[in-house]
């Protein structure tokens, strides 16, 4: 599949089978890519052309083992936020590499994953700075239940000569179950002096004080943990432009973390 967005856009694309796709973005817009039942592998090449601005969200609803391989080329002054939302009770391998080709290229890669019971979520993400004054941000949030296996290799790679560039990353993992395994490897490979870079990561159980506070207002342990989990998953919905779709996805989130949608009690 090949697609070129030459005008402003706001579109939802559904993938129902294995796909190799190239999408070129020349203007401003947002894209929701829903990976539905039937797909087990997606190879996607995104070309973000000069001065384009985009918000792109890949939403996993495949309900079976999935492998995503995403390559992103970012040209001069192109700005983009790309996210991966995955709350499925199935294994996922997610590879993503962004090439910041020309100055002013600015990308934020986000992921929000719910490590359901006995699932494996393996991620390998890299932003490669190939030009000066390029900006790369990574924000990876996940919530793990019993025996979930989560891996996140997040690599900010600034090559020599890419002065004035910035690479920042945050990974936060909330562990709610037992016997889960979380491995987070933040990497900063920097071959230039005049740059800014940072990484932050937290892995841990919910804060006891926060849980007590929520429970003191009448929420059960499960509801309280659900609310805390929502805090990890919700930020990625900023990539969805359509309010109705956003609300629907949010209800799905609440249900999956144990809140059972608006107004329902657990």
């Amino acid at each position, binding site marked *: 599949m090949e697609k070129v967005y030459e005008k402003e856009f706001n579109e939802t694309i559904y993938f129902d089978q294995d796909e190799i796709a190239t999408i070129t973005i020349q203007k401003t817009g947002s894209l929701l890519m829903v990976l539905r039942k039937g797909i087990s592998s997606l190879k996607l090449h995104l070309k973000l052309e000069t001065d384009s601005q985009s918000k792109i969200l890949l939403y996993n609803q495949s309900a079976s083992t999935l492998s995503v391989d995403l390559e992103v080329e970012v040209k001069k002054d192109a700005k983009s936020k790309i996210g991966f939302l995955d709350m499925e009770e199935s294994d996922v391998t997610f590879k993503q590499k962004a090439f910041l080709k020309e100055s002013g290229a600015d990308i934020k890669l986000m992921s929000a994953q719910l490590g359901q019971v006995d699932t494996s979520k393996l991620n390998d993400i890299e932003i490669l700075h190939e030009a000066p004054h390029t900006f790369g941000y990574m924000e990876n949030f996940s919530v793990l239940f019993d025996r979930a296996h989560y891996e996140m290799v997040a690599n900010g790679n600034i090559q020599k000569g890419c002065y004035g560039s910035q690479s920042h990353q945050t990974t936060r993992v909330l562990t709610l179950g037992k016997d889960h395994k979380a491995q987070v490897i933040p990497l900063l490979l920097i071959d230039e002096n005049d740059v800014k870079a940072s990484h932050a990561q937290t892995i841990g159980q919910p804060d006891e004080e926060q849980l007590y*506070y929520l429970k*003191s*207002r009448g*929420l*059960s342990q499960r*509801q309280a943990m659900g*609310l*805390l989990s929502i*805090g990890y998953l919700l930020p990625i919905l900023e990539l969805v432009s359509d309010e109705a779709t956003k609300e629907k996805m949010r209800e799905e989130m609440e249900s999956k973390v144990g809140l059972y949608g608006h107004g*329902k009690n657990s």
Partner: protein
Amino acid sequence: MTELVIKDLHVSVEDKEILKGLNLTIRSGERHALMGPNGNGKSTLLAAIMGNPKYTVTQGSIKLDGQDVLAMEVDERSKAGLFLGMQYPSEISGVTNSDFLRSCINARQEKPISLFKFIKEMDKAIQQLEMKPDLAHRFLNDGFSGGEKKRNEIVQMMMLKPSIAMLDEIDSGLDVDALKIVSEAINQCQKETDMGLLVVSHYARFYEYLHPTHAHVLVDGQIVVSGDQELIDKIDKEGYEWLETEYHVSARKEETKKRPTSIGLCGAKRG
């Protein structure tokens, strides 16, 4: 008529006994002021009633209309009608105030609250507390000033309509104007719900606004004297020292934590 009855309550924190046989009864419509020197158990009492897991009840009973509060989980206590406005409310990023409060309201009733009714009630509470209208959409206490956090506790109290509300130094961090606003909101809430109030504060001015019906002084884990507004006035003028001679008690002194000694140098080499 709701009645919270505390009998012979002993509470420990990390094997150290803080409350040593405390008795107190609070009924609907009453306003109890709880005073005492720092570190003598006021906050411990409130936290133990609410069920903070850090506090262990070793002896005694707490009953709410005959129900054994100590046998309840924290959320069950809240649903039974207890509310604690905390001294240091938690900050929870990612959870908006409105989502949080709707979940809390829905957790305590059969049918979920209608969105229209919820928004109306929340707007009313926000206006009464003179908070910024965007409060509903901000993350719970995240980035709030000290005063905003305290006001937000009162917003929650107004929305949850408890039968017994406990307020732990809810006036600290509030300026004079905010103190008046918060007091009026508490008074209004009590007028509407007839809740019983247990208020911990060091400031006579707060009590002036709230007009307590009862006042108690807690020293070394026990209530040593109870009274009314006169007692509050006396403590405001004379402090707590007279209690030690008159009631032969000795206030527990707050432990001062040792600060690490600074050697005035940084080991890291500056490049």
